């Protein structure tokens, strides 16, 4: 007996199958678009249980601008505590290490300016136990205070240089030292910079002693500290974007949660990249396999997403008067509080810059505190400048006293001694290989995030989304951008 149901034609069946496949492939994007972000009110009960909305937790009796609770805090976390945890992860790790940083900038015309520096980093306080440090450094009263805060000498535990800097280094004292040795471009070869970073406080703004060695002039000169909120020349990022802001310089607020599926985006013109595998040799990787939190991160969602807290840090004007940025929005990995996406907003509340990071566990001994930025992309929306920084190799290690005394001094730079040469092959060979501008993620947290691009930038953004790689200024008419909602 023949069915009354109209049989599918082959064409219709094909159409249905293709439609189904298209729907299936677009599911993660649709999920990311529509379902990923939640305001505080919409958060799941599990997330609510991890969040403490109380803004007035006890303050440290001796350092009133930091929370009294022992770092790294315990759940439920306040927004401020999340902000403090995120400050653990500036551009260069706070633990002692050597890394090679291949960096560059690209303009909308395709001009690129790249460099390679080897960075030696030596924090004053390294990763050790509170007991060991206190025996060496802390006064009797500090030890008493630490004991009251649950950091008794008998309770040995790992604590990070950031935690040490918070409580054990006085404002004005040296917190960290970075020596940077330039190996590319040829014009900058052998140029060096020494950054001696100080612990600041709300009343002590001087952040750095800054020395530059010019190989061309063969001179070491002390330079004024870069203005903290000013874009480096030829770059999208500011000094504070690199060294980090201190958490007491902002008022913290939780905006909600989100799931991120991609941060740094490689173009389809660069399917492979050769990485220096922590100085053990060069390895070729498909760029599509590079994950946001690295290969060892155990908390990826089944669909590959990373669960994030989304917090807002508003600059405290009494601490940073005349600061260029009004507030920041940060996407923090829920487990490590690593900021994998940061947005900066100006005094007019409009988006100025987006910073996205791919992260790796570079110091496994520190567990969640051992993550470090592997690859960072900055996008300055006003000037449409993109910068990138690729920390191709991180070698975590302690410095001997002799090395510390030798390397981290201005005089060392005159010796033109590339003490620990590291190599990299990740520089762009062609402007077409440059990273895509980060997702704008329009639609998320619209009460806070105001995004306005100039028509030219909007057109370039739309063009790159269609092409899968940067489309430079061509002088030819650019198609009108698609509606903003169609652009993730």
């Amino acid at each position: 007996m023949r069915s009354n149901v109209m049989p599918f034609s082959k064409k219709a069946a094909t159409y249905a199958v293709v439609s189904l496949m298209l729907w299936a492939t677009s599911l993660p994007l649709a999920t990311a678009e529509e379902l990923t972000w939640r305001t505080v009110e919409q958060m799941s009960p599990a997330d609510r249980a991890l969040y403490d909305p109380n803004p007035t937790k006890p303050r440290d009796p001796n350092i009133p601008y930091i929370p009294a609770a022992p770092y790294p805090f315990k759940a439920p976390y306040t927004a401020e505590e999340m902000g403090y945890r995120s400050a653990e992860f500036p551009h260069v790790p706070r633990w002692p290490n050597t890394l090679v940083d291949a960096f560059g900038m690209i303009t909308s015309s395709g001009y690129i300016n790249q460099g390679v520096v080897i960075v030696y980093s030596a924090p004053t306080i390294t990763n050790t136990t509170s007991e060991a440090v206190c025996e060496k450094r802390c006064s009797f009263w500090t030890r008493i205070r630490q004991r009251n805060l649950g950091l008794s000498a008998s309770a040995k535990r790992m604590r990070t240089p950031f935690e040490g800097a918070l409580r054990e280094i006085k404002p004005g004292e040296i917190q960290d030292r970075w020596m940077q040795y330039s190996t590319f471009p040829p014009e900058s070869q052998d140029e060096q910079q020494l950054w001696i970073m100080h612990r600041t406080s709300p009343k002590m703004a001087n952040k750095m002693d800054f020395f530059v060695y010019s190989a061309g002039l063969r001179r070491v000169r002390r330079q004024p500290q870069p203005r903290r909120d000013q874009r480096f020349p030829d770059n999208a990022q500011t000094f504070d974007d690199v060294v980090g802001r201190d958490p007491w310089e902002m008022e913290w607020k939780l905006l909600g949660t989100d799931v991120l599926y991609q941060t740094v985006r490689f173009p389809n013109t660069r399917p492979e990249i050769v990485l220096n595998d922590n100085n053990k040799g060069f390895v070729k990787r498909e760029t599509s396999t590079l994950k946001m939190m690295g290969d060892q991160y155990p908390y990826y969602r089944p669909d590959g997403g990373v669960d994030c807290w989304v917090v807002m840090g508003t600059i405290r004007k009494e601490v940073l008067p005349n600061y260029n940025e009004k507030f920041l929005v940060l996407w923090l990995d829920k487990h490590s509080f690593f900021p994998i996406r940061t947005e900066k907003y100006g005094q007019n509340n409009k988006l100025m810059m987006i910073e996205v990071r791919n992260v790796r566990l570079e110091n496994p001994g520190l567990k969640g505190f051992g993550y470090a930025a592997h690859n960072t992309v900055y996008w300055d929306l006003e000037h449409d400048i993109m910068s990138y920084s690729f920390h191709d190799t991180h070698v975590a290690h302690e410095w001997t006293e002799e090395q510390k005394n030798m390397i981290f001094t201005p005089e060392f730079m005159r010796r033109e001694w590339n003490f620990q040469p590291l190599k990299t092959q990740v520089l762009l060979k062609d402007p077409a290989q440059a990273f895509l501008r980060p997702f704008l993620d329009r639609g998320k947290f619209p009460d806070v995030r105001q995004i306005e691009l100039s028509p030219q930038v909007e057109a370039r953004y739309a063009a790159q989304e269609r092409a899968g790689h940067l489309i430079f200024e061509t002088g030819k008419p650019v198609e009108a951008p698609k509606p903003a909602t169609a652009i993730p």
Partner: protein
Amino acid sequence: MRKVLHLYLSMTLISLAGLPPIAFADVSDIFSNVVSDFDRTMATFNPVGEYFREPLERALPDLSVQGRIKQWTDILINPDKQLGYGGKGLQDYRFAQLQNLLELKTSYAIFPGLDFKAVTHAMYDGAYDWQQSKGLYANRINETAERYNTTDRIMRELYVSYRTAKYDVIVGKQQVIWGKMDGQFIDIINGMDRREGPQLETEDYELRRLPAWMINTTLHFGDSSLQLLDIISHEQDQQSLPGSPWYSPLYTPSAPGGDVTLPWRRPHTGNLDNQEFAMRFDRAAGAMTYGFIYAYLWDKNPVDRIIGTEGQGAATRLLFQPQVNRLNHFGVTADYSTTLPDVPLVGAVPTVFRLEALYTLGVRFTDSNLQAAARAGDAGTDGTVRHDTFRAAIAAEFGLPGNTTFIMQPSLYYTFGWNPALSYGFGGGIENQWTLIPVFYLSHPFAFTRDRLTVNYTLYPVFGGPEITWQGVKSKLRISYKISQFLTTDLVYNSYGGGPDSGLYGQYKKWDNVGWEINYAF
């Protein structure tokens, strides 16, 4: 030759004409296509690096090669046919320089800590060839004015260095740079090729300094270091030659039958008594860095000493022997950084203060009164006298918004016991007891060019006393544009004016010039 010159000028003007549209790329979309194509082509344009440096370094992993090709040209705006030299000078040329320099730096790591390094230069100045001029003839006096043709100039630096945590030893021909101000204050170790006269500036020192053979040892103690120098061969300054573009118009050649100056005798190399010694101590202490120096050196320029007379009465001729003299230098350097809070209009201003000072004992000056006495028959004088001198500078550098840098640097030169009969001597006032040069420097990159375009302006007014209170002013406007990470260009305008014709800058009123520099590093 004229055809070559024409082609050269045409090429240069075409390339310069390309700059404005590049610099103002965002102003007009009309140029965006050209700009983008150009930028992407130039982004990776590094032929020497790609076909010479990289293959060489791959073949010899312990070898490091680096270099640059630099072309810089200065064109006088308003040359004067008859100028200087007692009315015999001819400024019948436009190009004050058409210099082309190839620099190659090679370094070979023999084993960790032990390196061999060589810096070679090949230089050719077309100013003597590419224009017809009777006023330029310095190349016939010394060919290095036109091209480097001696091993000494070509093999610029050549040394072996050995480094450990505690000390460095560098043995060979090298340059040691001690100063870091605009101008030379404690930068006294090496001589300098001063062919550019008043246009020799800090950024040129690296190329113009004259390396010397020495043993350079530095001991390191934490934040302190002690450097000891034993300079085996003395290298004096080389002033601009007669018949060179920057030779002083104040020079008057001696009349026939006048005084006689013998060739100067350089201190004999290899004699321990003729070696020079210097030491420097440095210490970094937080926001303050400071150092002290002592040096026992030869003066960089000879002084004419009377060694005899000929004739009698008004017809007496003096016989001069130029000699360099031993000098004892004592110096200090310091810098201090801070942030000035809440400065009106600009907010917090990161600031650095720098100081350099040098006190020199027993600088020898020629004294016209003593020369007159010698001419009158006083056999007890050699026509010179010793005085102490002092030179110092204090600089304040401010980091202003928009990546703008402003530097103020008052510089003082002073001669103790000065009198009007004295000529110039090392470190002292210029034609005066004291000379004050308050240098002003302003630099600003333009964001609309993505900071590729930077404008610098420097002003050097010269005051003095008690004789010539106003000695003129020099100003320099430099517009730099970065074509790529390998190629940069500069457009430079220098002007000289004010003050009497005998003033430091007043004498160069006819030397205003515009120039360009193209620098390719590989």
